[in-house]
C-alpha cells in the first residue's frame, strides 16, 4: 500500500481539485482509500458526494475551569498563565477557553483547588463511502486546537482500512501551510505531490513546503496548476525543481471548467473532457509509475 499526500504550502492552489481528480482516476484502476487531512476546512466531501457510515466524537485537549464558589481571587492562576487566558472578572477570575492551551499550570498552582481541567469535545470525524472508495474526514470545531492530532487520527484510520482491505493507495488531501497539521499529514507518506501556481508567492511557498517534506524525508513531486497564467514563473518552477532533482509530473492549464465542476460537486476529470482532464490523466500515469517503481526498488 502506498500513501500519497497532496500539499501546497500556499492555500488555494488546487490541492482538493487535484486530490478529487486523482481519486477518480486511481479508483478506476485499483482499490483506494481517501483521507481529507485539512480538518479545519475540509472540502473533499463537497466533490465526492460521500454517504456517512460512521460518526465519532473527537475528544482532545483540556481547558481550565475555575469554580467561582471556591475561588478566593488570589490571582495566582493569572500570574502563572503564559497564554493570557485567565482574566479578572469582578471579584473572581475566569478562563477564556479559546486562549487556554490546557497546560494545567494554574490547576497545579491554585491553593484552593478551585480549578479543574475539562476535556474538550473538539470535533467530529467520519467514515463515509464515496463512489471512489472509503473516505475519512473530520470537522474540527471553531477555534479548537490540536488539529495535528485530528489529522493524524483521520490519516491513521485511512491507513488501517487500506491495509485491512488490501487497498493499493491512500490519497491524503493535505492542509495548507508548513506547521503541525502539515507535518502530521505528511508523516508516513511515500510521496508528497506539491500543487503550485506560477506566481511569486507560489514559488516562495513551494520552497518552504518542499523544505518541510525534505526535512521529514518524504520525496516530492510537483504539479503546476494554471501553468499558462504566467509562463515565465512556470519555467522558474521547472528550473527550481530540476535543480532540486524533483520531477514536475503535472502541467494543468487554466480553465473555468475547474470551477464549474466544483460548483456541480464533481471531480473535474469526472465532469468534462478537455485539456484539464487530459493533463490530469497524464499526471496520474506519471505518479502511478513513480509509486510502482518505488515498490520495485524495495523488492
Amino acid at each position, binding site marked *: 500500500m502506498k500513501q500519497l499526500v497532496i500539499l501546497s504550502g500556499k492555500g488555494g492552489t488546487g490541492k482538493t481539485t487535484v486530490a478529487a481528480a486523482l481519486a477518480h482516476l486511481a479508483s478506476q484502476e485499483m482499490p483506494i482509500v481517501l483521507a481529507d487531512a485539512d480538518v479545519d476546512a475540509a472540502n473533499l466531501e463537497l466533490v465526492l458526494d460521500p454517504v456517512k457510515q460512521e460518526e465519532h466524537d473527537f475528544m482532545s485537549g483540556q481547558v481550565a475551569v475555575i469554580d467561582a464558589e471556591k475561588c478566593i481571587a488570589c490571582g495566582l492562576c493569572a500570574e502563572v498563565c503564559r497564554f493570557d487566558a485567565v482574566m479578572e472578572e469582578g471579584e473572581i477570575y475566569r478562563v477564556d477557553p479559546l486562549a487556554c492551551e490546557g497546560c494545567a499550570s494554574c490547576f497545579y498552582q491554585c491553593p484552593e483547588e478551585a480549578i479543574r481541567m475539562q476535556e474538550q469535545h473538539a470535533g467530529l470525524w467520519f467514515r463515509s463511502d464515496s463512489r471512489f472508495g472509503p473516505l475519512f474526514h473530520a470537522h474540527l470545531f471553531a477555534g479548537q486546537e490540536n488539529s495535528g492530532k485530528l489529522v493524524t487520527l483521520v490519516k491513521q484510520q485511512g491507513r488501517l482500512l487500506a491495509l485491512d482491505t488490501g487497498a493499493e493507495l491512500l490519497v491524503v488531501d493535505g492542509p495548507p501551510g508548513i506547521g503541525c497539521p502539515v507535518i502530521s499529514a505528511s508523516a508516513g507518506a511515500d510521496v508528497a505531490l506539491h500543487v503550485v501556481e506560477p506566481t511569486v508567492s507560489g514559488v516562495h511557498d513551494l520552497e518552504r513546503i518542499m523544505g518541510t517534506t525534505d526535512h521529514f524525508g518524504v520525496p516530492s513531486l510537483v504539479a503546476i496548476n494554471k501553468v499558462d*497564467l504566467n509562463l515565465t514563473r512556470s519555467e522558474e518552477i521547472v528550473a527550481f525543481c530540476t535543480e532540486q532533482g524533483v520531477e514536475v509530473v503535472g502541467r494543468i492549464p487554466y480553465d473555468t471548467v475547474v470551477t464549474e465542476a466544483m460548483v456541480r460537486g464533481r471531480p473535474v476529470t469526472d465532469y468534462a473532457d478537455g485539456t484539464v482532464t487530459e493533463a490530469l490523466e497524464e499526471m496520474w500515469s506519471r505518479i502511478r509509475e513513480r509509486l510502482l517503481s518505488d515498490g520495485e526498488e524495495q523488492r
Partner: protein
Amino acid sequence: MIITIASGKGGTGKTTVATSLALSLAAESPLFLDCDVEEPNVALFLKPTIEERREVGQMIPEVNFDKCTYCGRCAEVCQYHAIAVVGEMRSAAAHVLVFPELCHGCGSCTLNCPTEAIREVLNVTGTIERGSNGSIEFGQGTLNIGEPMAVPIIRQLKRWVIPPDHGARPIILDASPGTACPVVESMSGADFVLMVTEPTPFGLHDMRLAVQVARDELGLPVGVVVNRDGVGDRGVDDYCAAEDIPILLRIPLDRRIAEAYSEGTPLVEALPEYRERFQALYADIEKLVRETKGAAQ
C-alpha cells in the same frame, strides 16, 4: 483600529486585499502585519525595507542534573509529554529527556520542580521582523522549516509590533488560511474581521467556518470581500443575506489582476482606480466598528 483579514479557504485573495488596503491608507501611516507565519507573502508585494529582526520561539526546560532527583514531578505535570524521566530514580541510568517540538512553553515543570532544578532557555523556532515602506510600518513572522507551532511566533510578533495605545491608527493583520489556533491568535484583539472569499462552494464552506470563529466564538463584527466575483455560483451572496453579513467590496474575475499578482504587483498599483474603493472599504469598516461599539454600550 485593528482589522484582521481572514478567509477560511486559502488562495482567495487575503494578501491581495490586505496589501491594497494598506497601500490605499498610506496617508494614515498604517501598521501592517503578516501573521501567516507558515507562508508569509506580504513582503513579496509590499517590498518593505527590513530594519530589525529577532529570533523567537518558546521557553523550554533545561535540567540542572546536579540538583535533579529524578522524582518525575515535571513529567507528571506536563500535559504535552514534552518532558520525560527515564530509568530508575537515583540510578546511574536515570535521565530527563526534553522534547522541544512538543513543549508549549507553559513553565509548569519549572514551577512544580521541588528542587528548583529546572531553568528555561529559549528554543528558537522562528523570526520576527519589522520594517517599513514609506509611511507604512510593517511586521512579519516566519516559522522555521520543520517546526510545528505557529502560534508563539504570531503572539510575539503582535506583542512586539502593536503598541498598546494604538488608538485610531489603522492596523491590518493578514491571517493564515484555515480556522484553527493560528487564525484565532491572529483574530484575537481585533476590532473587525474582514473575510475575503470567492463565490464558490469551497469558498463559502470555509468562510462559514471562519465566521463561526470570528463572530460566534470571539464576538467580533465581520464583513466580506467577494473576490473573483462572477466565477462560481450565488452561494456566498445568499449566505451573507441570510446571516446579515455585509458584502463591502466586490472584485471581479479579471485576468489582469491574476497576472499582476503572479508578478508580485499589488492590485492598487496595477489598477490604481481601486485605491478609492479600498479607502471606501476602510470608511465602511470604521462605521461598522463604531456602530458595534455603540450598540454594546
